[in-house]
């Protein structure tokens, strides 16, 4: 068991230096903002204390095992213990734990403050993607109309942001390790989570509360950018809808979109022949009652629950690995026709349930009143897919 102890010690040691990994997008030991930093300040000493206590125990056991092995000595004294020693060894860990408890409680309180945040962003979880919306407010530099996006949240740097989250179906958990710990998003409740990024960058996260079939495919990203870039992003999001020019492929795509997609997917500004706004009714078709808003799809660089890239690998790398001061501009470029990852997008349109496990067959789901959970198989022809891709490329 010396070896057992050795392995254990190695594990603990490796834990202590786990923060050294490079480029691990969800590393919990690489804070990138004050909230995660508070946790870091707490957990590093706690891990150290735990490691030291562990090493003491291993050393003690190792020593005893070596020193008191049976070498033919007489039967030892049948002592039943020394109460003073016992009490001492009970008080010692108690003192250590009191030392840990005090900063724990103060950090819990600090991380739960909501009054000093300057920007509110709502996230809503549903199987298996996150909707992000920016309510009308004075915060975030002023937002005059609701911005609805999904999968990726854009925030200004150095601004304390309050994430208010809930869920439309089951419990999900919203977690960007480099910005803060996770917070479960519970249907019927509004939960809060503070985030703040020190530097522009793309911070990855993942749904961490088991939420059913495609739990593994429910990811999210936070893109932090300078306030100026953020203003540009907001302006772009709120720009009025521009219909494709008549006669273009995209215009045919718009017709295709209206007939195939707009039942569930909202594109703000889309109008029917009478000039009435087209209102999607995902609540009629989808059990959670929501589908991603595609108005500005191509300003994001992932889709379907941030599971698939909209960008080709080289283009993606240019954005994701950009130095902090270039992240904002690179992201704002959106998806250009050259960079579009048309393979995944076309596969998705061809047969979404084959790409990402979903309950997309309502016949198997008597208990959902015949509603889908996730995007169904639409039996689109290759021509239809061509048109739709052309249309979607202009959504930015």
């Amino acid at each position, binding site marked *: *068991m010396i*070896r*057992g*102890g050795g*392995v*254990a010690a190695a594990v603990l040691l490796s*834990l202590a230096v*786990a923060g*050294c*990994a*490079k*480029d691990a*997008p*969800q590393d*919990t030991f690489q804070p990138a903002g004050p909230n995660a930093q508070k*946790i870091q300040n*707490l*957990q590093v000493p706690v891990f150290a204390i*735990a490691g030291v206590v*562990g090493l003491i125990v291993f050393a*003690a056991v190792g020593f*005893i*095992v070596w020193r*008191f092995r049976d070498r033919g*000595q007489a*039967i*030892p004294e*049948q002592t*039943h213990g020394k109460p003073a020693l*016992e009490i001492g060894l009970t008080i010692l*860990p*108690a003192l250590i734990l009191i030392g*840990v*408890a005090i900063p*724990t409680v103060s*950090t*819990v*309180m600090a991380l*739960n403050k909501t009054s000093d945040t300057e920007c509110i962003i709502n996230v809503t979880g549903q199987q298996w993607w996150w909707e992000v919306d920016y309510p009308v407010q004075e915060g975030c530099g002023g937002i005059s109309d609701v911005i609805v996006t999904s999968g990726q949240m854009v925030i200004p740097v150095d601004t304390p942001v309050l994430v208010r989250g809930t869920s439309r*179906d*089951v*419990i999900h*958990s919203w977690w960007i*390790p480099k910005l803060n*710990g*996770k*917070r479960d998003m*519970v249907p019927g*409740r509004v939960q*809060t989570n503070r985030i703040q990024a020190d530097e522009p960058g793309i911070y990855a996260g*993942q*749904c*961490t*509360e*088991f*939420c*059913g079939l495609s739990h593994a495919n429910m990811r999210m990203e936070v893109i932090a950018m300078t306030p100026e870039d953020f203003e540009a992003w907001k302006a772009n999001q709120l720009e009025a809808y521009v219909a494709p020019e008549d006669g273009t492929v995209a215009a045919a795509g718009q017709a295709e979109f209206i007939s195939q997609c707009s039942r569930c997917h909202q594109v703000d500004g889309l109008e029917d022949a009478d000039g009435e706004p087209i209102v999607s009714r995902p609540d009629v078709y989808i059990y959670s009652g929501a589908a991603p808003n595609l108005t500005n799809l191509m300003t994001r660089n992932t889709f379907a629950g941030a599971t698939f890239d909209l960008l080709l690998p080289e283009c993606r790398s240019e954005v994701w690995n950009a130095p902090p001061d270039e992240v904002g501009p690179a992201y704002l470029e959106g998806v250009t026709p050259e960079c579009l990852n048309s393979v995944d997008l076309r596969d998705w349109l061809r047969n979404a349930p084959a790409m990402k496990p979903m309950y997309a067959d309502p016949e198997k*789901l*008597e208990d*959902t009143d015949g509603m889908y959970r996730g995007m169904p198989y639409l039996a689109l022809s290759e021509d239809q897919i061509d048109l739709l891709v052309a249309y979607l490329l202009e959504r930015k």
Partner: protein
Amino acid sequence: MAIIERPVDTPALAPEGGPSVVATPSTSFGYFRRPVETTGWRAWAFTVDHKKIGIMYGVVAMAFFVVGGLEAGLIRAQLAQADGTILSADKYNQMFTMHATTMVFLFVMPMAAAFANYMIPLQIGARDVAFPRLNALSLWTFVCGGIFINTSWFLGGGADGGWFMYAPNSDTPFSPSDGVNFWTLGLLITGVASLVGAVNLIVTVINMRAPGMSLMRMPIFTWMALVTQFLLLFAMPVITVALFLLLFQRNYGATFFSVADGADPLLWQHLFWIFGHPEVYIIVLPAFGIVSEVLPVFSRKPLFGYPFVVFSGAAIGFVGWGVWAHHMFASGLGPISVSVFAVATMAIAIPTGVKIVNWTLTMWGGKLKFTTAMLFAIGLIIEFTIGGLSGVTHSVAPSDTQQTDTYYIVAHFHYVIFGGGVLGLFAGLYYWWPKVFGKMLSEKIGKANFWFMIIGMNMTFGPMHILGLQGQPRRMYRWTDARAGEGFFNLGFWNLVSSIGTLVLMFGVLLFFVNVWVTRKAPPAPVDPWDARSLEWITTSPPKAHNFDRTPTVHALDEFFHRKYEDVGTGDHHEYKQVMTGEEVVNEEIAHADAHIHLPSPSYWPLILALSMPIMAYGVIYHTLLIVVGGAMAVGSMFGWALEPSTAPDSDFDPPADGTPSKEVALHV
């Protein structure tokens, strides 16, 4: 059907001069005669002997251990590489749900129950448990429940909501197969087993201790098992309530967890974890008890600070009720609740730490003999320390919000449950094997078994610490290279190490079965192979049906040791002289066998009552008619139980009239 047979052959006569009654209840109730078979399957199926029941508990638990292990193997195979394709998402979700369910409810708990059943009466000097038929009912109910849950694999797939089965993801729209129904009903059934067993063992320990055995002279395993039974007694009703709510939510249109109807899904989490946290101690305390038996024997010293170990066990049993919400630090309880539960969680580390200290100090100054059982016990100290310390790191609530639902938690609780539970159970298997089966397991294979298991478990679960801290969430059917990172701590390498570790671990467990097979024809074990210290060794191995020929009288903690050795030193100088060998002690007991030994008789009804439960459960899932059939069977068997005579003919043993002790006691048990 005549329920009462008139005693035709021996008519009741009232001769002159006084009443003489020949008829007895046992002859009056002909059709309710109790079984008397002593061989063949009937001797096992209808037995109420706590030893046979204990063995059957162990065998079935081991079978489920293999099932759960194979499920774990598939999980690790899937995760060995990025974007694993061995299992579909659906099957993977079922696999991890059933792995946890099987391991917790169908392996560790019943394995602990096996030891408790077998050892408690022996350790307290009793002939059997207080309610022998209830004991049989516990066993068969557990077996029925376990098999019932696993039949879901063939009937549309297992449960897929995780063993924690959070609402509303467990509701029918999100889990449309019958798996969750199987899970709910199966756990309700095994819950009956646990609850019945708990009542039984508590009464046994409180009422049936041998003369002289005060509570503070009770062997430590019995103490820890007693605390466990109290935890079960209070925890099982909570999960039963939760399971009923879920059952009605899914099957009868109830809205306990429906947000649209104003319910709060966090209700389930509170109910589940009020059960679920004590459950952790239900799992580890029996193993702690075993280790506390094994360490003194092979250190040749009494347990250091026996009262401290007892009281820390009891303290864990109490404080364990006040920490459930640390499983919910991320679920939005509010800062006050989070702080309170964080501090309470830290507090429970103290009694747990006391145990580690006491085990270490038990070995201090001892005369350590590294048998396989001892190796497993020392392994438990080390591995459980790791699990305990990682537990302290997430009692720090803010830190836990980074760690919870990642592989770091998986690592933590496997070090606790495997390192703190399963290693202890294996220590118990090696330690008590000669007691139970009268044969020694091979020490050579045993040591290989230990080393493969310990290396395997550290290889499997150790890297999970890294995976978790690198941000790999739990319960994902696949992980992706895009989030794997590079460098030394990349997810790809450590996932692979973990998966290879699983193979090593599986090989280690396989060696145990090899060991059992190889030694199946070994010569009889000596009466006292380990120079043991407690009461269960003051009888033959395996013990006779009535356990002790003479009910032992207890004079001290570690009674057996004090019968064998005498302190011949003077003053502070101690010197221990062997006055008797273990065999002589046992023979002396046999020579003074008790005159009349009453033993409970076997019964058909526990098995029949247990069988009715899965029938009713299938009825809930498939057809109401089955509920009626099962219900009728249950009610009928309860009446059969109530109506059967209290003993089978000739079940009691009386030695020959001249008072000469009998070596062989013929019993129908």
